[in-house]
Structure formats: C-alpha cells, structure tokens
C-alpha cells in the first residue's frame, strides 16, 4: 500500500527524472499529517504506542514532529503505520464514503485488450459530482495520470492489491471535497502563477490532449509549464491557432520544457 506517489510499482529502468521529487512530495505530505488524524484509525494506536508517541498530548503534532519528539526516525514511524495497515495511507477525505460517493472505473480489461482507457477515465472524472471520488482499477500504478489529474485539482491515493492490480482514488482535497472530509480538509492554496504538467511517459497523442485540456482551464496570468520528453512539434500549431504564446527549452538532456501563456485579453 502506498500513499499517492510513484514510489511503488515504478520501473526503475526507465531512469526518468521526476520520480524522486514525486516520492519526496508524497513523503512530505504523509509527514505533514497530524497524530490526531492518524490515530482516528484504532489500528494506528498500537503502532504509535510502541514507538513511544503520545497520541493524546501530542495529537496536534505532525508525524514528522512526533517522530522527532520520540527520538525515532520518521521512516520508522511511517513503516510502522504501513505495517499496521493504516499508515496514514487512506486520507481522511476518503474515510467513511458510501458506495454512492464512488465513481468506479475498471480499465484492467481495456488494457488487456490493448484498448486505450484514457477517454473512459477522463469521462468518469468529468462526470463525477463535487462530492464524488473516482476509483480507478488498473493493472499498474498509473503514475503519469497523477500529474494530468493533479492539474485538475484532484489528489490521489493508491492501493496495491497485487503487482498487477491497483486501485487509485482521485478526489478533491480542497474545500470542494467530499462532505465527510469537509471538516478536516485544508483550504486550497492560492493558484500559482505557474502550473506544471508532466506528460512524460504518455503515449501519443495523450500529451497533446492533456495539454489542450489544461489550457481550457488556464486562468489569465497563469503560465502552463509542460514537461515533455521531446519537442511536441504537432502541438505548436495547435497553440498558435488558439493564440497561445509558447517557448521551449531543454533544462536537462532528454527533458523538454514548454512554457505556454494564454492570449492577452482583447482591449
């Protein structure tokens, strides 16, 4: 079981950059959860007690702070929580959801048949109501999808049932989150001036589709920074036709960055 990252099931042979930052972000997110949140699950209590963490007086501490206070490495605490079967893995936003709140999409058969499931997934995401969570069942961890849906404001949480059987929950982590999570959801951060979309590892033309879909929601003044594994020569004319300005550079060998700005509003 893992929490929202590409750390498990990822093929280390591909040597892509970006996986380590993703893991780091996921670890940071886990470490930032409070003892109170984690100890809401009774299975966590034994693990916390075993490591000398007080879930009562120290309930306000983050896991990172609690581990430091107990003189334990954070990794040991996270591992203990993982082994307890809760591990702060299931976000509170996903606790107590009934079946009606879940939009289930099983793409295992599509992939076995060689069919492209992207459209089904995006249709399910588009069709999900404000309080609903999309639960994707896939034969591998769909890491590239995390960035694509992340740009739509969806957080994710993954469960590995077997090496070739994953469930990934996509949910809104902000104020528009599911009702049961509303009490604990943090306010959404202010929109950044630059939003990043990593489309590496997607089969053509999914990178183009992901970029064009994201452009649709780009706010005035925002810059879309696309991370690609090649110069998208077929995307440029589409950007030109829609009036978007763009520039491309290569920050590292094999990594291409395209910065896209919306057209200036008409006077």
């Amino acid at each position: 079981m893992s929490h929202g990252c590409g750390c498990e099931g990822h093929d280390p042979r591909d040597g892509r950059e970006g996986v380590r930052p993703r893991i780091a972000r996921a670890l940071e997110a886990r470490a930032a959860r409070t003892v109170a949140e984690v100890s809401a699950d009774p299975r966590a209590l034994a693990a916390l007690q075993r490591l000398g963490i007080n879930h009562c007086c120290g309930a306000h501490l983050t896991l990172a702070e609690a581990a430091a206070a107990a003189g334990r490495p954070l990794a040991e605490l996270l591992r203990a929580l993982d082994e307890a079967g809760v591990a702060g893995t299931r976000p509170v936003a996903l606790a107590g959801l009934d079946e009606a709140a879940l939009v289930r999409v099983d793409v295992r058969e599509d992939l076995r048949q060689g069919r492209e499931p992207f459209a089904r997934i995006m249709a399910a995401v588009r069709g999900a109501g404000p309080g609903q969570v999309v639960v994707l069942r896939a034969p591998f961890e769909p890491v590239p999808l995390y960035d694509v849906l992340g740009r739509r404001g969806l957080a994710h949480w993954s469960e590995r049932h077997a090496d070739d059987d994953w469930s990934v929950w996509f949910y809104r982590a902000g104020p528009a989150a599911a009702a049961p999570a509303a009490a604990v959801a943090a306010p959404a951060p202010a929109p950044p001036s630059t939003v990043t979309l990593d489309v590496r590892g997607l089969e053509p033309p999914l990178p183009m589709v992901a970029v064009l879909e994201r452009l649709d929601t780009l706010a005035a003044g925002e810059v879309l920074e696309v991370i690609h594994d090649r110069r998208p020569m077929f995307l440029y004319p589409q950007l030109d036709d829609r009036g978007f300005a763009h520039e491309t550079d290569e920050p590292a060998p094999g990594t291409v960055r395209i910065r896209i700005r919306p057209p200036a509003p008409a006077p």
Partner: protein
Amino acid sequence: MIGPAGRSPAAPSASLPLRFLVAAGTALVLAALGVPWLAGELAGHYYHPRVVALTHTVTLGWITLAIMGASYQLIPIVLERPLWSERLARWQFLLLVTGIVGMVGHFFIAQWSGLLWSAGLVALAVAAHVINAALSMRGLRAWTFTAWLVVAALAGLTLTTLFGILLGIDRLAPFLPGAFFPTLHAHFHLALLGWVLPMVLGVAARVYPMFLLAPEPRGRGARVQLWGIALGVPAVVAGLLAAPWLAAAGALAVAAAVAAHLAWVLGMVRARRRPALDWGLRFVLAGAGFLVPATLLGLGFAAGLLSGPRLGLAYAVLALGGWASLTIAGMMLKIVPFLVWYQVYAPRAGREPVPTLAQLSWPAGEAAAFALLGAGVAGLALAVAAGEAGWVRAAGVVLAAGGAAFAATLARVVHHATPCAARRAAASFPQAAAR
C-alpha cells in the same frame, strides 16, 4: 527555442504524409493481388519481367512511398525539425507516383525505353525527397543515432536510384562491366540494406519507445548498428560486384547491426510499461521476427553455403514481405490514426470530447490483417523456395486477403477525415467515452 511571437515554423500538414501512405497501401493491395495472379512466374526464376514488376510494386510502390510518407510525419518528431518545403513534397508525390506506375507498367510489358523515362521521373522525385530531407536537417541541434541513420538511408536511396538508372541504360545499351546477376543483386542489396534498413533502424530507436512506453535504448548497440551499416553495406555491394570475400565480411557486419537492433527491440519489449500490445506493435514485432530467417539466409548466400533463384526469391520474400512490410504496416497502424486524429480532432481537443486513437481503429480488422499477412508471407517464402505454383497461389490468396483486411482497416480510419463521418463521430464520443 520556439519563439513566443508569431506562428511556429514547424506546422506539419497531416494531409501530406497521408497521401503517400494511402498510395502505399494501395500498392500493397495491388502487390498482394498480384501474387496469386503471377503464381506460375513466381514458382520459376525471379528475373521474369512480371516478377520484376511485382518486386518494384513492393519496393517502390509500397515500401518507398510508405517510408517517404512516414518521414514527412516523423522528421518533425524524431529530428525535431520542421519540414523544409511541403510544396516540394507535394510535387515529389506526383512525380513519384507517376514514375512508379510507369516503371511497373513498363517492367510488366518488358518495354525498356519507356521504363527509362519512368525511372527518370522516379529519380527526380527521389532527388526532391533527398533535398527536402537534407535541408530539413540543416541546423540540427544534436546528431543523434536516428539522425545519422536517416542520413545513411538518404545516401543509400540516392545510390540505389542511380544504380537502377544505370541498370536501365545497360538494358538498352550494355556498358556495365561484370556479369548481369551480381550487378542486379548489388542493386537489390543497396536498396534493402542501404535505404530500408538504416531508415527502419533509425526510426525504430525513437518511435518504438514512444509506443511501447519504454525507455529509449542506449549504449554499445548504437555503435554496432551504425558501424555495421556504414562498413557492412558498402562491403556487401562491392563484394557482389567485385570480390565475394568482401560480401561475406560485409554480411557479417550487417548481421551484427541487425542483432544489435533485435537486442534493442527485445530490451524495449521487456522494459515496457505498456501491459498489452496493440496490433500495430504486434505487426512491428512480427516484422522484427522475420529478420532472423532473412539474415540467416543472407549470411548463407554471402558465405556461399546457399545459392539458386528459388532460395533467393524466398530470401527476398522474407526480407521485403516479412521484415520490411510487416514493420511498415505496424508503423502505419500507428501513424495513420494519428494523422487522421490530428487533422480532424486535434483542433477540437480540450474544447469538446474527442476520441482516442484506439477509438478510431478497428482491432478486428487489424487482427485479421496481422494473421493473414503474417501467415501469407511465411507461406509464400516456403512456396517459392519449393517452386510449387499451387502453393504460391494458395499463399497468394491468403496474402491478398490480408492486404484487403489491412486496406479496409486503414480505410475505416481515413473515413473519419470525411466531414460527415467526423460530425457523426463527434456526436457519439461522449457516450462512447463514458461507456
């Protein structure tokens, strides 16, 4: 850097490669239909005017048109350079198709002077393609493995064309030194190993990872392929023309390049993140599989262990019909849907639901084409090796059915580009996508 102001210089037109690919698909169907029709001739010696006409339908009509059409889509992608002139490419298409029709027709009726005029048109078209591709590569940021092999392929194409013209002149007024058949074999191998092989190897290194979702291959295999082709192909051609021992050494170098390519393909298949292979990828991998018997036969001929027109024809069937044709067919099953999608749906993407490539394709037709073409080529290789006209006819019928299935599959995709089909499809995609 692509500047923020003004239009990008790299706006590729989908209709340009599409016209080449549609013409190539038509040539494949005609060639496949020609096999059962010419079964008697194919069971005999390969240097029969009608067999030579059939061979040029495959090599020029199907393989060369397909590679050139795919180049006009792939040059911007794999070399990250815009095409120098689309207008020149459109003129080139007209010249090439006219020249190929003329060449095949004149071969068929064994009329050499008319053949030479047609070959001249083909040579002009080839010159236009080489100039266009070479000028497109000006200012290339990095001379990658793919870029070097594309250059090698363009050189091979130029030399093959010149060699072919010389052979044509020689038919009218003999002037070439040496025996005729070694010269003919040198022309064939220049085309196969100098034009088709480097182009496929170069493009495969960049395109297969995109579709297999595998890391791009790196390492010593690149040097083996580059040097194997750079040294091996001239040695094979020179050896066939002058010194047989040189042909054997060259064949070994080419075989090493082929082995390195196959090792890369195998590595990409193993490292892929894509769980299921679609039919396009199965075509490509089956094509790679045909490289093994074709290379072994080639080595056998070069070493003097094998000889004779029947085995020679079987070798050509495995190389052109098995490896080159199945590989190109597989790539077309990826390229054509993309081009149609790009032309029809890319302008709508992000604004309304659009289909995926998989929704444009027809897996049942692709499966039928895969089974029939694969079985047909294998059967035809065995049949021509045995010299049995009945077997050739039977294998030809299977091939023709495979060609028809392939053409029907492509036609269904291309049909999306018609205005009414695009409107109908767009209306049905939200439902299809939510299924």
